[in-house]
């Protein structure tokens, strides 16, 4: 082409070899954002979408109007779930590397999101998660062994061998089935919330997508329907800066925060320090109260960092500085909560180490048990005949006959 391209191509602040640079992130000191009443008019609280709600300050103290004043015992429990999430992930990652499960995705660096938000919701509230919300399942009572069995596609797999690892669901826990297709759960959450309102119930729904996933059509559908019908729903965007190899600028994050995506529809947005469990809890509770009292949807952006690889199929050092996460200005969520608890005299390095050991043992025990229900190479195996179930409420004749034929062939 003769002339030079004038197209703007977003560029991340650093590539492999470069010094990490997070200067693009709008930060704000803890406590600097006001906390409006839950019945505030959307127009009056637009600034929440560009500020940054933080409770834990640089000295690990909980400060400001969003401080939820949770007691230390609860915080210890939160820390435990976050740590469990991380230890579980590390173990499963290893297991995948050993070739014993086919695939895995970790929540490394983002553990505060699922734990903080789970704490703020009620059991009757319905969750529509993405694939990095494993701690939601843990917090809501799924057993580790059952999650492992899912990853193993074994005889106790809740998905009967049909889904990739990490695509959990929890009927009793009120957590919807994870889809491989990005963002599709967002309008489901809105529809679920609409149904709750139609039935006159006060359960709300919550859903999660990544920064990259906001570009999908279903993000727009969900926001539109949520705004039009003022559905009681919390729509969360986990902005971990990356979508596989593309940074958040490719999802339109170069100019305004993701929290502000709903403003044009009148949906209030809150931008939250996604590595600050207290801030996450407080913001989610605020949005949940608002929804429950008929105030409609809230969009929450959780500013965090995907510290690990996208999945076991990914190698992030090929597209971003190797240890970029160590420079992330919002730190590590587990470490920050730990330091806070220590600083208020309710935790210690020793107790932390001890907890770690306990959790490792718990995870290991679960893994031992899980394997008894079968692995990819060792029985017992799921019955392949079950592949034809659950496609329809009752299996129709053509699938029954394919099942018979499959058994015949496999038996031959």
């Amino acid at each position, binding site marked *: 082409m003769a002339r030079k391209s004038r197209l703007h191509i977003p560029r991340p602040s650093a590539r492999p070899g470069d010094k990490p640079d997070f200067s693009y992130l709008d930060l704000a000191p803890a406590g600097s954002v006001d906390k409006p009443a839950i019945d505030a008019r959307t127009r009056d609280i637009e600034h929440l979408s560009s500020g940054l709600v933080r409770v834990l300050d640089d000295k690990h103290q909980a400060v400001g109007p969003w401080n939820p004043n949770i007691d230390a015992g609860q915080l210890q429990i939160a820390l435990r779930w976050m740590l469990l999430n991380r230890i579980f992930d590390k173990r499963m990652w290893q297991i995948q590397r050993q070739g014993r499960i086919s695939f895995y995705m970790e929540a490394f660096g983002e553990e505060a999101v699922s734990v903080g938000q789970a704490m703020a919701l009620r059991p009757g509230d*319905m969750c*529509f998660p993405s694939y990095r919300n494993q701690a939601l399942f843990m917090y809501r009572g799924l057993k580790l062994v059952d999650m492992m069995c899912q990853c193993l596609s074994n005889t106790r797999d*809740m*998905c*009967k061998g*049909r*889904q990739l690892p990490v*695509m959990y*669901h929890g*009927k009793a826990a009120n957590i*919807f*089935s994870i*889809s*491989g*297709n990005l963002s*599709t759960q*967002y*309008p*489901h*959450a*809105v*529809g*679920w*919330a*609409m*149904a*709750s309102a*139609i*039935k006159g119930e006060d359960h709300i*729904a919550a859903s999660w997508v990544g920064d990259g996933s906001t570009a999908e*059509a*279903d993000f*727009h*559908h*969900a926001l*539109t*329907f949520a705004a*039009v019908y003022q559905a009681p729903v919390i729509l969360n965007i986990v902005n971990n800066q990356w979508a596989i190899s593309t940074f958040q600028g490719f999802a339109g994050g170069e100019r305004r925060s993701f929290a502000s995506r709903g403003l044009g529809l009148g949906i209030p947005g809150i931008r939250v320090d996604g590595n600050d469990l207290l801030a996450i809890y407080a913001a989610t509770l605020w949005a949940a109260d608002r929804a429950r009292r008929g105030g409609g949807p809230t969009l929450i952006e959780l500013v965090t960092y995907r510290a690990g690889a996208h999945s076991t199929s990914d190698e992030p050092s090929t597209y971003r500085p190797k240890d970029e996460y160590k420079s992330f200005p919002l730190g590590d969520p587990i470490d920050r909560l730990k330091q806070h608890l220590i600083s208020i005299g309710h935790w210690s390095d020793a107790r932390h180490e001890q907890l770690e050991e306990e959790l490792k043992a718990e995870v290991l025990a679960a893994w031992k048990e899980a394997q008894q229900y079968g692995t990819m190479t060792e029985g017992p195996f799921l019955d392949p005949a079950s592949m034809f*179930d*659950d*496609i*329809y*409420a009752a299996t*129709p*004749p*053509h*699938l029954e006959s394919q099942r018979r034929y499959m058994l015949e062939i496999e038996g031959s």
Partner: protein
Amino acid sequence: MAQMNMVEAIRSALDVILDKDPNVIILGEDVGYFGGVFRCTDGLQRKFGEHRVIDAPIAEGGIIGAAIGMGINGLRPVAEIQFADYIYPGFDQIVSELARIRYRSSGDFFSPVTIRTPCGGGIRGGQTHSQSPEAIFAHVTGIRSVMPSNPYDAKGLLISAIESDDPVIFFEPKRIYNGPFDGDPDKPAVSWASHPKGEVPESYYTVPLDRAEVVVAGDELTIVTYGTLVHVAKAAAEEVGVRAEIIDVRSLSPLDVATLASSVNKTGRCLIAHEATRFAGYGAELAARIQKECFYSLEAPISRIAGWDTPYPHAFEWQYFPGKKRVVNGIRKIMEEG
């Protein structure tokens, strides 16, 4: 019993089921206050309220996505897509979600959404108001696809669809909303009053979702068809004077193979007719399956009469539409063969 046209029968089905099951809701563009661009929901919002018959934003993907979420929360949503030509923005939610939720969650979750959508041409709608996309839905396992050809079936099948715990795509051939149509646009319009299936009970009844119907018995030829073409096929067979057995498939997926196969095994000849484009159309599955089941009875190759493999042109609607002439021609050819 009452006389109803297809629009009235569909409205009656919705009325009956809204009344019977408080979890049924209707969601769609212009379905509420206005009553739908084809009037299928006329009066229902007035009767059941604006929280059960709900006007929606113009976003077919959003309508289906939200309906799925409602279904997961115990409602039984009936979504209307204004024209089948506009169902594609909702295709991902149908294929990746609606059809898969039960399977991927091992039956722990499901969403019993029914999607009603008018299809087919013959109303001068041009290429974006005339499509018959049933083949691409029939290929998607986990959903049912249904297309009635008369008021009685329309009501009974629609009630079955809404009550089914499976998702159903319910295609309504809009050319026959007001009367059966034999494919000749120059003839005066015929009303459903003249057709036995225009007699429709006002109360609740169902027609099963997995049975084809032999609408005319015969022994010389089997014509397998559905939707508007059922009426064209009847007229064409009469014109030729052949004793054709005419089968209305009705439920396209899952398919009632037995009814088709036993007929063709008896007649030895099979003509398939539909309005959709031919290449990789639904008739291909019918032909593939029937030749397999009835190979040794067949006296002639199975033929397909279908829309040309072109978009549906505004000016050439009647040259495009597989009308009586084309079906007659198809019948004559197949009777001469073998």
